[in-house]
């Protein structure tokens, strides 16, 4: 058996396979299909300081080889997460990564501070694809200085690994990557969803109540892979790659492009066992190709 363990910016994972925030609930929802102990890590639903009800419905629409979602960060708040959802995960031998979102730079810091003193959370994934309330709603994730400010605010409040999750809706993803690495990110996750929309031609209204929504799924894979490739060249922290991964071959493409770990998102909805299938597929690939340690193929396409 090949060694699949990886170090994602200080977070030790027994294998590179994790889940994309928002597509795997709080983990237990998938327990009927997935052996949670075998996952490299579990990334839970995006969490905010206060509980949120999220957007009105419809929140979801199917698109060619993809889907649009505008859940609007419905979540029980960080206290709800810690009280309700964290305890059952403690019996599982897999690190839990909490994905956080804030309305202001300060909120990110407060969230990090709460997580720092909470046992059972191994790392923080910082979702910067959120509107900055103080800057008229422009996303933190589209302005290097804002993204860096968020990262610093988190960094100053925690010693746990900080993984900053980049938005793909930018001209130059490497500029964003460099800004948040300089601000203290231990690892980068990419990509979040592409901004999209759909129209119901019968009603002449947007399909999604929120008008705009995030595009994910196999459709976006070529864009995500390109960004992982570019960011791998631009920075030296490890990357958590995601965006349209639907099978082991896709996952290996991301690893070869430079991802240390990979996350499965939308594919959990088309095959709830996908994380296990992908893990087994990576194992089979390594065996077949004589890869003794997964590190041999991380970034292989650059060599």
């Amino acid at each position, binding site marked *: 058996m090949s060694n699949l363990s990886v170090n994602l910016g200080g977070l030790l994972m027994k294998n590179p396979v994790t889940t994309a925030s928002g597509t795997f609930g709080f983990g237990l*929802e998938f327990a009927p299909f997935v052996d949670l102990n075998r996952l490299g890590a579990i990334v839970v639903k995006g969490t905010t300081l206060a509980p949120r009800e999220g957007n009105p419905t419809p929140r*979801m629409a199917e698109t060619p080889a993809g889907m649009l979602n505008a859940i609007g960060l419905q979540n029980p708040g960080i206290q709800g997460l810690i009280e309700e959802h964290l305890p059952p995960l403690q019996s599982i031998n897999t690190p839990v990564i909490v994905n956080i979102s804030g309305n202001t730079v300060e909120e990110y810091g407060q969230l990090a501070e709460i997580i720092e003193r909470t046992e059972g959370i191994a790392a923080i994934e910082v979702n910067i694809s959120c509107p900055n309330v103080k800057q008229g709603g422009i996303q933190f994730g589209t302005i290097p200085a804002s993204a860096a400010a968020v990262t610093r605010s988190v960094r100053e409040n925690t010693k746990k690994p900080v993984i900053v999750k980049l938005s793909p809706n930018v001209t130059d993803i490497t500029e964003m990557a460099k800004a948040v690495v300089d601000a203290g990110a231990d690892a980068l996750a990419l990509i979040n969803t592409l901004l999209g929309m759909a129209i119901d031609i019968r009603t002449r209204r947007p399909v999604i109540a929120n008008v705009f929504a995030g595009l994910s799924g*196999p459709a976006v894979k070529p864009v995500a892979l390109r960004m992982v490739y570019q960011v791998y060249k631009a920075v030296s922290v490890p990357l958590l790659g995601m965006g349209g991964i639907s099978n082991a071959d896709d996952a290996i493409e991301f690893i070869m492009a430079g991802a240390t770990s990979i996350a499965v998102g939308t594919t959990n909805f088309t095959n709830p066992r996908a994380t296990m299938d992908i893990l087994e597929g990576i194992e089979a690939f390594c065996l077949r190709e004589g890869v003794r340690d997964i590190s041999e193929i991380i970034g292989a396409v650059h060599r």
Partner: protein
Amino acid sequence: MEPLLTKAVLLDQEQIQPGFFRMILSVPEVARRAEPGQFVQIRVNNGLDPLLPRPISLHDIDPLKGTITLLYHSAGKGTRILATAAAGQELPLWGPLGKGWKMTEPEENYLPVYVAGGIGIAPLLPLAAAWSRREEPGILLYGARSTGQVMTVEGFKDLGVDVQVATEDGSLGMTGRVTDLLERSPWGERRPLLYVCGPKPMLKAVHKMAESKGWACQISLEERMCCGLGACLSCVCKTKAKAAGKAWTHSKVCTDGPVFWSGEVVWDE
């Protein structure tokens, strides 16, 4: 019971009305776990087009034969592909999912009244089967636009259910809507327990009537779904909040429902 991810084998499929199909699937483990009002997430093929599974209710559950039956309207891209599936084909699915219809205690002495609009009939048949096993087959009030949208009435009759139909164009039964059938309170002196499934405007209208008349009422809701497992939060509906100072909260149709007591449901506007 926990849902199962598996491949069902299509045993038989037939078009029972123009655009409406009934398929029988062999999927023993799911059939054994399923309860009336639950649903499955079924994929119409193994590819990426369409990407997502389709939620379809269980129209018949046969734990002994190990089969489930689906009754569905072939309306859009996915269900049109499903309608072309041939016997022997494997269809990936997971289920049973959700919280189904609630049967009350016999002491409560409710008379089950199934209130269906169009394809909303689908999840009511296994419920009627369960009630008739208790020797209380109940009444079906079935509204549809036209006779072409009325189906599986025989199945209910075979169970001993009193079937009353209304069509908007008068092509079958009474001319009118299901609410017109309800107006007559055809249950006489008995206490009705309404089990309602159909299009949203009909659900709202029945809910309103039930509230004003004090009838017990359960409603099966529909929302667009991805996971069917309570993970993605695509499928929420508004329900009464327990916390003070809040009018409503978001519940998940897939795991908190699809069936809710009418008192829980909060409609928009």
